[in-house]
């Protein structure tokens, strides 16, 4: 827990304009506060990375922490119930990775009325009732990966992209997809052939990729979620389409491994571990009435073969040996 990750360069977006700051956590919490953490799920290494940051920072700062996961993005009612249960069990602060950015708005008001600060982590959401937010700007995430695509483009090379943004109706998939298309579309050589929405399981994405290979023979770029990339690697090998390049819109363990093997071009990261750490730090700052930032945003990084070795991966993913803990007790 005592890896020295700070100071960490982040955007302070509290005022509306972005300001780069060196984020510094507090040393210790004044009291062992009870912090309730709500996750959409813990079914992939991405959320495990956030959990890792949260658990580690809770230990370092000396607070009590419990994580509840809702079992998936299609379980909004369950997250709402968990939110209520958090309030009922007397938490001092709530850190939430919201399933629906606006779906928990009403819950937020209830928490605010009870004086419980709510900190949004990882999943972006803007609300006056939020005490603080630690999440990446999805637009910058999408444009980072679009830029990675553009950067890799040889002069005059045409890119025919099929995007696999994630589940329809999730909001984030739609947002990222739109921004990716906008940014990538600035280059007239880049064409988006289609967007294939689907759940972020490897099996589902595999079928989508396989069908897209048939439906769009001219496709030479795949941009999509981490499970898409994972599925696409096998599908491309099998179809003998080594010319198709893969860029992942976010990070997980499989992406790191695939990058090491050279199976994908790049993936973008929002440093989920740092998001988790900062979220806990912000919660403690608020509870201890210390100065805090209303909205901190990690600056998305593009990780490719070149940048991989220079980076501290423990800011991106949990160590392979770490097994998730759901509660930290003092």
């Amino acid at each position, binding site marked *: 827990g005592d890896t020295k990750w700070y100071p960490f360069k982040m955007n302070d977006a509290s005022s509306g304009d972005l300001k780069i700051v060196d984020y510094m956590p507090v040393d210790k919490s004044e009291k062992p506060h009870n912090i309730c953490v709500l996750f959409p799920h*813990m079914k992939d290494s991405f959320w495990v990375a956030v959990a890792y940051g949260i658990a580690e920072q809770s230990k370092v700062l000396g607070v009590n922490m*419990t*994580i*509840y*996961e809702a*079992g*998936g*993005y*299609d*379980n*909004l*009612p*369950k997250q*709402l*119930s*968990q939110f*209520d*249960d*958090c*309030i*009922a*069990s*007397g938490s001092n602060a709530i850190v939430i990775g919201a399933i*629906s*950015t*606006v*779906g*928990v*708005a*009403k*819950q937020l*008001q209830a928490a605010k009325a009870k004086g419980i600060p709510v900190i949004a982590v990882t999943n972006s959401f803007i609300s006056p009732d939020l005490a603080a937010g630690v999440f990446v700007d999805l637009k910058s995430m999408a444009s980072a990966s679009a830029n990675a695509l553009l950067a890799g483009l040889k002069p005059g090379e045409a890119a025919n992209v099929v995007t696999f943004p994630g*589940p*329809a*109706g*999730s*909001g984030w*998939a*739609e*947002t990222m997809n739109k921004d990716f298309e906008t940014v990538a579309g600035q280059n007239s050589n880049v064409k988006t052939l289609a967007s294939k*929405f689907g759940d972020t399981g490897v099996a589902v994405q595999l079928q989508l990729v396989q069908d897209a290979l048939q439906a769009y023979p001219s496709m030479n770029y795949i941009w999509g979620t981490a499970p898409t990339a994972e599925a696409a690697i096998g599908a491309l090998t099998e179809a003998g389409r080594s010319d198709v390049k893969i860029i992942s819109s976010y990070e997980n363990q499989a992406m790191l491994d695939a990058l090491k093997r050279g199976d994908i071009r790049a993936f973008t990261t929002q440093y989920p571990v740092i998001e988790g750490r900062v979220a806990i730090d912000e919660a403690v700052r608020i509870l201890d009435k210390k100065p805090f930032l209303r909205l901190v945003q990690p600056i998305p990084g593009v990780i490719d073969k070149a940048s991989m070795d220079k980076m501290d991966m423990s800011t991106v993913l949990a160590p392979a040996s770490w097994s998730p803990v*759901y*509660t930290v007790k003092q």
Partner: protein
Amino acid sequence: MTMPAPSRLSDRVHVPVHQLILPLAVVVLFAGFAVRDPRVMSAGNLVNILQQSSFLFLFALAQTIVIIARGFDLSLGPTASMVSVGAALAMAGLAGGPYPELVIVAVGLVAGAAFGALVGAFNGAIVGYARVTPFVVTLGSFNIATGIATTLSGGHPVQGMPELFFGLFNTGSILGLPAPVVVAILLGLLVHYLLRRTVLGRGLYLVGTNMRAAEVAGLRVRLILTSAYVLSSVLTAFGALLLTARTGSGEPTLGGTLSLQSAAAAIVGGASFAGGSGGVGTALVGSIFIIVLSNGMNIVQISGYVQMIILGVIVVAGVVVDRLRAQ
């Protein structure tokens, strides 16, 4: 929840002892959690449990109605999503205009109920007239409703509903009971009356028990089946409206896992897929059982995946004990 027990309303039929097992299990479970952590019994948490139960209760009741008619509604979840988006769009669309909030909310309610009725009529007509297995019909409309919900909303939550809507259906309270609980009680009483005191309700049980005999006895079987699905989907729509008021937005994925959850609550409570049994009471007991269980586990801080294991075991165990006594 303070629903009158069915025994008091229905015709002097005394409740057999074995029907009290599951409610007893709920109490024991609750007491067990309360011993582990007194916060389970705090006033805040009791209201919380009531509120959470009232949503699941409405969906379980909707599912129970078709289960009584020997059917099954797989499309319940997506219907909830579709209603949420549809009603939110209707209200948000009018919100900027010159209409008073009350009118907008009324339009939203009517739109939501109409969306529900539409799905129900579609399901019911095909089940009743073409006699296709309910599972397949509602699997079809599961997909259709999912598609409509995401297409209408463009995948984003729909915002901009009038405050009155939230006030009436979420934050408001009567006699200390939160609005969703009040709505659930009212609808529960209404459905109880409908099932026990109307020709339609009687028909549902008879058709579900023995469709052939019902036909021979001159009951309008097709009409009854269609009405069952319409009624069920309208009830789902009300559940969805309450949830929409709770989330503050029309959510295209609101209903995700509700189809299965509602069926679980209905069956745990004592309805049977063989048809002809179940009612308001079983839906109530089933949903409270599940909510108390998951609320308790959350509060005593059992981690997510362990919760899944415990939930699975206790649900089966609860039903085993309940049914063993019945034999």
